[in-house]
């Protein structure tokens, strides 16, 4: 299932112009700060409302400003891991992990809770509050929370930005282990190409709101 996005969006002096097809698999979006990476993710998630856009997820139309179509974020079935963990401070780790599950039909839960807890090594943290976790642990919970919402599209915005150097290397293998069994289209934003060079199937390089390069990872 692929995502197509055709957008013109302006915020102050910044302008984003993008016509892209994001294929299934692992897509890396790279580029310097201010090139429009996060804005692109927010448009895919429905957190930013662009001036003009058509966004499709497979057969579903999420945005069509010409026809007034707008699917709000909570109906898009996405998993979004932000730069900061953005955990719910008043909930335990377990409550955070299960937040995206409650309102869905049980048969839609194709991703098992125990599996995610095991893969991300969260079993010993379940009763704690986010304030008592390290940065790396918090980001692991944020990743688990996004996965347990059974997303049809996974968005990751520099998920290692808030993690200290020592713990950076431990998070990506968790994601790899998960992706080995669940083939969920993943869009991974980073300005560190080395983070994703061995994982990406497809690369989109942005600069100043425009696409510099787009193609299979090997051809960059």
């Amino acid at each position, binding site marked *: 299932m692929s995502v197509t996005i055709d957008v013109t969006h302006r915020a102050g002096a910044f302008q984003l112009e993008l016509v892209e097809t994001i294929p299934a698999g692992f897509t890396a979006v790279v580029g310097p700060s201010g090139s429009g990476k996060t804005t692109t993710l927010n448009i895919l*998630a*429905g*957190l930013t409302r662009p001036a003009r856009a058509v966004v499709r997820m497979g057969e579903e139309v999420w945005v069509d400003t010409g026809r007034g179509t707008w699917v*709000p*974020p*909570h*109906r*898009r*079935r*996405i*998993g*979004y891991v*932000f730069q*900061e963990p*953005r*955990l*719910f*401070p*008043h909930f335990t780790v377990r409550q955070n992990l299960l*937040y*995206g599950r409650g*309102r*869905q039909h049980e048969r839609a839960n194709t991703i098992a809770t125990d599996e995610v807890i095991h893969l991300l090594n969260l079993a010993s943290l379940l009763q704690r*509050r986010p304030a008592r976790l390290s940065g790396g642990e918090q980001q692991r919970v*944020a990743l688990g*929370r*996004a996965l347990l*919402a059974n997303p049809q599209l996974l968005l990751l915005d520099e998920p290692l930005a808030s993690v200290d150097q020592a713990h950076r290397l431990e998070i990506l293998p968790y994601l790899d282990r998960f992706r080995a069994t669940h083939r969920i289209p993943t869009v991974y934003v980073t300005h560190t190409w080395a983070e994703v060079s061995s994982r990406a199937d497809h690369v989109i390089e942005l600069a100043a709101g425009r696409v510099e390069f787009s193609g299979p990872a090997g051809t960059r």
Partner: protein
Amino acid sequence: MSLSAEELSIVWLSLKVALVATFASAIPAIAVAWLLARGRFWGRTALNVLVHIPLVVPPVVTGYVLLRVFGRRGTIGAWLEQYLGFQFSFRWTGAALAAAVMAFPLVVRAIRLGIEQVDRKVEESAATLGASPWWVFLTITLPLALPGLLAGLLIGFAKALGEFGATITFVSNIPGETQTLALAIYTQIERPGGEAAATRLIWLSVALSVLALVASELMIRSRQRSDA
């Protein structure tokens, strides 16, 4: 000091008026605070001004407006009496309405500050997890704004307990029906030889206020403990 039956009934009436005023205005205050903190709509500034009016006009004006609107011949008051048999004027319910209207700006302010302190990014992450705006509000915004909500209800209760000007204008000063502590103190002060009675009532009102403060302090502390 032991309380006379009359003093007890004054205290009871004051508590009833203040509690009803506080709890009846809680949900409208939360709604307005949320609109002011998060809403983006035409007329937001007008709503903000409207809510603050009772804070800035003389209480006697608020009382008079209430009389014109909710009095027996008032636009809404006449309707309420004809169709629901319900009456505000010269009743304790009217005292509660006046107290609620006077306390409303303070309550809204405190709750609004509480809501504004909630990180919108955390609310956004809840939305990406499938939570509708209403569900985000109930499970994320409101619990995280709880300190502001409690502070708002407390200050509302304190204001309602001491309300004087709008109350006496709207529902008059009827012993046993609308004569709250503040109004009873006023009556005794005006009455020749009423100083002793006034002093007892003043001490009573101080004691009540201190009790309310201590209760709120305990409530906040027990909450902090449960967070740790």
